[in-house]
């Protein structure tokens, strides 16, 4: 690792000032520390969000949305977001217990790994991503692999999830990394169904419009019969080629519909 300093502010205002002063946010470090070890980043100063009480916790707002503060660790979401079971189950299956004790929702959404779990949950739920500056709808937030609508130094402070009638997250695990090879988040709302897929596309998390349409008319696995994902924009790597991932998209979507609750 290159040398850098670490600051540990205890308020959001102090963190904003330190980041504006050239610092980079350090949340759980479960992505950033491996990146620093590989010398893929060279910050002069890291600003830890871990000691900022106002950036932690799970609550429900007046509209019934589950609101998760940006530096809340996956384990807390798994334990405390039970009012939205599919969301709690996403968090409870990320990585392993040690990763869940450190890694946070803000770090995951800021990083937007093309195989990460929270982007699928946020896009699939139509969540709102709140920052120190504005509120961004999930549909406007994800901009491709490792790319988001966040500006330089913008901090994810909270994520608000509307709670669907039923939902499920089906994760086909890549056993070495424990990230999804392909995973699908399906959520059925009164006004329609959302299907978000991670791990599959070269453009990062995306919604599968054809499946959403079919499922909005008829929320059963059979409604997906015959629907095929176009393999063209799929990721190909040593774990699976384009056709394999395209196939998994359909299989995991069906499973998610079957298991939605």
């Amino acid at each position: 690792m290159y040398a850098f300093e670490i600051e540990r502010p205890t308020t959001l205002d102090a963190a904003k000032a330190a980041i504006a002063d050239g610092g980079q946010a350090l949340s759980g470090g479960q992505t950033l520390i491996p990146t620093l070890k590989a010398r893929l980043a060279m910050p002069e100063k890291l600003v830890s969000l871990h000691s900022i009480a106002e950036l932690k916790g799970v609550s429900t707002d007046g509209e019934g949305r589950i609101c998760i503060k940006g530096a809340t660790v996956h384990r807390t979401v798994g334990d405390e977001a039970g009012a939205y079971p599919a969301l709690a189950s996403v968090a409870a299956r990320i990585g392993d217990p040690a990763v869940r004790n450190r890694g946070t929702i803000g770090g995951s959404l800021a990083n937007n790994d093309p195989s990460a779990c929270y982007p699928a949950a946020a896009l699939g739920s139509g969540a709102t991503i709140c920052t120190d500056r504005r509120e961004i709808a999930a549909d406007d937030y994800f901009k491709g692999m490792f790319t988001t609508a966040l500006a330089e130094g913008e901090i994810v402070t909270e994520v608000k999830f509307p709670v669907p009638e039923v939902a499920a997250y089906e994760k086909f695990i890549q056993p070495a990394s424990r990230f999804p090879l392909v995973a699908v988040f399906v959520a059925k709302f009164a006004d329609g169904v959302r299907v978000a897929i991670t791990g599959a596309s070269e453009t990062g998390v995306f919604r599968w419009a054809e499946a959403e349409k079919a499922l909005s008319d008829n929320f059963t696995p059979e409604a997906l019969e015959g629907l095929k994902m176009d393999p063209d924009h799929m990721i190909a790597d040593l774990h699976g080629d384009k056709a394999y991932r395209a196939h998994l998209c359909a299989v995991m979507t069906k499973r998610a519909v079957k298991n939605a609750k």
Partner: protein
Amino acid sequence: MKVTMKVNGRAVSGEVEGRTLLVDFLRNDLRLTGTHVGCDTSQCGACTVHVDGKQVKSCTMFAAEADGAEVATIEGVAAPDGTLSSIQQAFQDHHGLQCGFCTPGMVMAAASLLKDNPKPTEAEVRHHLDGNICRCTGYHNIVKAIMAASGQEMPAMAAE
């Protein structure tokens, strides 16, 4: 920068750089070499310790982040007279280790599981060990040892 923390109940302090990993502080500064570095890429769990009661990978946390925290490592698990903890004893009784490299992390992971879930099922034990890799044992005897440490028998397994 200066960091101060409690490690296995003892107050310690030292000078670290921002980039000093917790595992390097434990091993190089405090000479607590029971915590192992197996991969250094956050995959293997050999470096598992507890920070404020929560299991973490000490290769994926900075020493500066543990300033003011309570850290527990494998060195603090046995009694001061050397008597093994029930988990450690179960690992010995059930051959839960061969080379022993993964064992400190396995024991720390097992301790954190049994603290939250004193009577886990076999599936829960295996799920909890997702982040701990062992190249030797094939895991069966590790799972058996943790089941035994929780006071449960494990049914014979297909591979036996």
